[in-house]
């Protein structure tokens, strides 16, 4: 862990990624079994949102401490997108109470880890 200061790396980011993939797997099973989004998916999305908000708070603390992301524009863009993803999945899942609602939850929860990784990359200055 070379997390020399990056607030959106290490354990919190890892937790968000693992949790997101777990919800995606659960939603995939539900979609394959012709099940509408269940309570577990919605709770999973809610917990995921809390973890992502935690990441945002960590970033805010680091910013208050004088640290700056390598690419500020991209960083805040990704951060804003990231915290909107679980609510988006939740709303769309409620609109579609069929197996396809579960498929939507799965798709969004597969995108979330990518955004978390990109968020970490935009904090660190990657020589360019």
């Amino acid at each position, binding site marked *: 862990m070379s997390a020399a200061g990056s607030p959106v790396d290490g354990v919190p980011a890892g937790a968000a990624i693992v949790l997101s993939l777990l919800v995606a797997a659960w939603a995939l099973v539900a979609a394959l079994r*012709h099940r509408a989004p269940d309570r577990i998916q919605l709770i999973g999305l809610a917990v995921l949102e809390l973890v992502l908000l935690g990441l945002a708070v960590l970033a805010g603390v680091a910013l208050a401490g004088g640290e700056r992301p390598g690419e500020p*524009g*991209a960083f805040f*863009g990704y951060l804003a*997108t990231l915290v*909107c993803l679980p609510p*988006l*999945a939740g709303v*769309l899942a409620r*609109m*579609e109470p*069929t197996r*396809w*609602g579960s*498929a*939507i939850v799965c*798709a*969004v929860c597969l*995108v979330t880890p990518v955004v978390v990784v990109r968020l970490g990359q935009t904090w660190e200055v990657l020589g360019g």
Partner: protein
Amino acid sequence: MAEVRTERPTRTNAGPGRLLIAVYLLFAIAATSRAALQIATRFDEAPLAYLLSALAAVVYIVAAVGLGRAGHAGRRVALACCTVELVGVLGVGAFSLARPDLFPDETVWSGFGSGYGYIPVVLPVLGLAWLWFTRRR
């Protein structure tokens, strides 16, 4: 999975269509924020690439709205958008490989969408297939 359907869906905004709209929304967000950032911070570096990013963003948004509206007009709009998208991703993909000098920075459509897991090249095909599947006869 002996799911026998007596009626084929004719609405573009229900069932699998809603998943398609969700993915279009994700790409609308990705392309819009990318284009906005590129144009706001370093437009001079690669104006063509960034304008194409902006075009892609608009196409994704309009396609999502078209699929979501589900009426005749919505279908027309979605059909046009998916076509533009397919032509765009194939054209830009080919050009970005043949003439990399024209694209000093990446767009959503560069390398057939390789930066986005090739989903940009699959998405319009799925969109067109869905429109065809839900057509009225």
